[in-house]
């Protein structure tokens, strides 16, 4: 297999677009080196030959029959749900929201987990693209995330370890690879994150606080933050997932907003999957809401975490990351056993193209270095919509 590049890797939300792919000897290597990216490409480049283009109950069928069956299921559904999007493009998400609108379905862009309600609508946020952080931030605080395993080139792309004078602070009590690279390491159990953030904020405001053993490390951190003109915080599900996640995220944004009065301060959120940001952006512009949206009433309504969806009867997975159970799945990797109708799609960035939004919102093209026959999820969804409307 040839060597190609530089192209965009869609192995994580960083969408590095400088990647050379060497797929010789049935093993994939990337330059610059990235294990996650190499794994992502090899799963898609080295797919077994002769895989069917669609299956119903695991048996190979032609795409037309699969579409007919999928449309029947969707037409008969009382409460259809579209989710997944871990590897979706902007185009896939556009077609998915169009279908959800037509069906009166629920659509969830947060990989199907009912993540906590977002904090940004409460007070806003200060954010920046990767280049801004790389070129300006002098202290980078990574809060309970391990990008070394989830976004392997993040530190490199933020210029950490690149010779510029910069402090990497990691807040984490477990021994992650990222924590191993920290210049300053702060550790307390996750249950104390809210307290830590509000304490930092109080200290920033000059209040006297009693925070026990947190007080010393937090005062030290504040001193570092105050000593430089530009700081950045990297966070993600490690802070925002689970009970109280919205309050913790809000506390972070409040702290950053307070810090902004004295210096420039920004945040960068690590998404759960490479396609999440694209899908969420599209859902927001087409419906007006990010996150999870219900079209059942004929117009978009925001679904919050407090409204569980026990009545979903037909699930359509769009470019999922793993083979979960669903009535219908559209994906570039083979479906798991729990899927009734599966249609194989092109992997955007390998045998299909498209547009994707990087974790900081920057839109990028995904190239198709090895164009193939399989349709994109967008194309399948558009055909599905036509079939449903028939």
């Amino acid at each position: 297999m040839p060597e190609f590049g530089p192209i965009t890797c869609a192995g994580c939300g960083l969408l590095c677009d400088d990647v050379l792919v060497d797929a010789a000897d049935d093993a994939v290597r990337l330059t610059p080196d990235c294990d996650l990216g190499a794994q992502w490409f090899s799963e898609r480049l080295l797919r077994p030959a002769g895989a069917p283009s669609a299956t119903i109950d695991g048996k190979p069928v032609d795409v037309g029959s699969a579409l007919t069956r999928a449309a029947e299921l969707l037409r008969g559904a009382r409460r259809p749900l579209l989710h997944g999007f871990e590897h979706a493009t902007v185009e896939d998400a556009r077609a998915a929201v169009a279908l959800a609108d037509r069906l009166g379905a629920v659509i969830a862009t947060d990989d199907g987990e009912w993540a906590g309600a977002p904090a940004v609508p409460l007070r806003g946020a200060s954010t920046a693209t990767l280049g801004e952080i790389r070129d300006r931030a002098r202290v980078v605080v990574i809060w309970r995330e391990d990008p070394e395993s989830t976004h392997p080139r993040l530190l490199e792309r933020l210029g950490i370890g690149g010779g510029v004078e910069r402090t990497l602070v990691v807040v984490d009590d477990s021994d992650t690879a990222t924590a191993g690279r920290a210049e300053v390491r702060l550790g307390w159990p996750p249950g104390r994150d809210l307290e830590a953030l509000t304490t930092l904020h109080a200290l920033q405001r000059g209040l006297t606080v009693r925070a026990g053993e947190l007080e010393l490390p937090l005062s030290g951190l504040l001193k570092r933050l105050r000593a430089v003109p530009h700081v950045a915080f990297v966070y993600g599900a490690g802070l925002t997932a689970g009970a109280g996640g919205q309050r913790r995220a809000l506390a972070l944004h409040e702290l950053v907003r307070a810090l902004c009065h004295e210096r420039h301060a920004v945040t960068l959120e690590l998404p759960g999957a490479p396609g999440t940001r694209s899908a969420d952006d599209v859902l927001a512009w087409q419906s007006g809401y990010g996150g999870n949206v219900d079209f059942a009433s004929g117009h978009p309504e925001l679904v919050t975490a407090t409204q569980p969806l026990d009545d979903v009867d037909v699930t359509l997975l769009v470019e999922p990351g793993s083979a979960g159970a669903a009535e219908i799945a559209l994906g570039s990797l083979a479906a798991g056993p729990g899927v009734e109708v599966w249609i194989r799609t092109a992997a955007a960035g390998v045998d299909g193209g498209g547009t994707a939004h990087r974790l900081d919102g920057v839109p990028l093209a995904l190239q198709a270095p090895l164009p193939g026959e399989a349709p994109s999820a967008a194309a399948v969804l558009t055909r599905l919509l036509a079939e449903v409307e028939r």
Partner: protein
Amino acid sequence: MTAIRISGGRVHDPANNVDGEIRDLCLQDGKVVSEVGPDARRIDARGMVVMAGGVDIHAHIAGPKVNAARKLSPDERRDHPVNRSEGLRSGTGGLVPSTFTTGYRYSLLGYTTVVEAAAPPLAARHVLSELRDTPMIDKAFLILMGNNQVLFKLIRQSGGAVSSQLRDAIAWWLEATGGYGVKLVNPGGIELWKQENGNVTSLDDEVTGFEVTPRQILDAIAGAVDELGLPHPVHIHANNLGVPGNADTTLETMRTVSGRQAHFAHLQFHSYGGKPEGLPRSRASDLIEYLAAHPEITADVGQVMFGPAVTMTADGPVSAVLRDLGADKWINHDTEVETGCGIVPYRYRSGNYVHALQWGIGLELFLLGQNPWQVMLSTDHPNGGSFLSYPKLIRLLMDRAFREDQMARANQRAIQRTALTDGLDREYTLNEIAIITRAGPARRLGLREKGHLGIGADADVTIYHDRADREEMFATPRYVIKAGEVVVEEGELRRSPDGLLLSSRAGFDPEVSRVLEPLFGERYTVAFEHYPVREAALREPAQVVEAQRS
């Protein structure tokens, strides 16, 4: 495509010196034609007013900042659901509507062309994707170039003069993004904001690290755009927006670009007297006086309307000021190399001195100016209020009694400090409204086939009931015809065509890539070769307007 004869309407087509004549208008194949056959559809427009479709020269409808504002304010849109219906998509309205709803609402208002006035070039793919999902209207976007570090380098290298490299770089950027024109927002100031919360306060402040000044940026880029002969001249959001006393900066900016064509955005926000820390007063008359002597300068007003708004701007430091006025919500977003962004939901209150003064200054700019071709209608949607408030604004201009009634409800100390109470009894005519809402903007955008109804013009036509209540009249056109198709009838959407992307093109020396590539490599986190938008689906259907070098 069907032919249409609009018969018996009163036609207001100021670009062709037609002022309320009763005449037939014939449309075929998307264009205005001299005659159509007997089988043409006949629209009886007796008793109605016929104008070209509206053209919005400055609004914020698509791209990352608009979408961030949507995500920021789900509460604001909850009250404005839009149901899906046959052939139409669902969505949400309010101050920052979803994309489909934006297209539908503009069309229902009789607008057929809209310019998104501030797009980060790095985000072009996002802007284009949203515009693709904004049906009914033709749309263009302006790319932000006033804080671009690569251009700073080129400007410094040429000592502030226009260089062929700068010209080529700008043309390259338009080609790379599909943009239509060049926007400068607070030149130099946003770069300082992103460095350490700084800003510039005068045109001669130096941009730290780049050794250029706002004056050099303005001079060089206005000159380059002028020399390129782009269809739309440089579009300027001047320094010191909102700051009392900023009229001096605005006048100085106008003098700096003098001799070149230039459009000034939302002039109302740049027309203040007073001292920076004190209360503003109006200097609208000084600016209007300058405009009267300088036909090469145009402006849109950026009227504020009492009620809710969402401020969204590339001018990050301005948003921080609004944040500190007690805003609940604030978004800041820094885009590498190019620009910033700030968003603050806001409310203009009629009893508030500053807000009432802003409202009054906007009206002064409209009413004091003698040349409506120079001063165009905008609310800087949604910064001064939604585009849905245009009909009310039109009524304020056309109906003196209504205006006086509204003035009486506003903060009197502010109103007394404007010329509105000095017997400013002017009422706009329908022809003047046609100029400030379509003929003027189209001409300024260099869209020769828009904004008028002469033979060969685009068949974008709006037909209104001639009602005494001008707000009602302009809020609910009877028919809207887009590219020769009736899209609104009886005040309802009938069809949802896509609309075109309007891009401009100027020739450039491809060797400019050799200059740009290393500068990109140093600064961007996106590869030079992947930056240009080549995906056909994002750039089509398009109409390309060629630059005309003098």
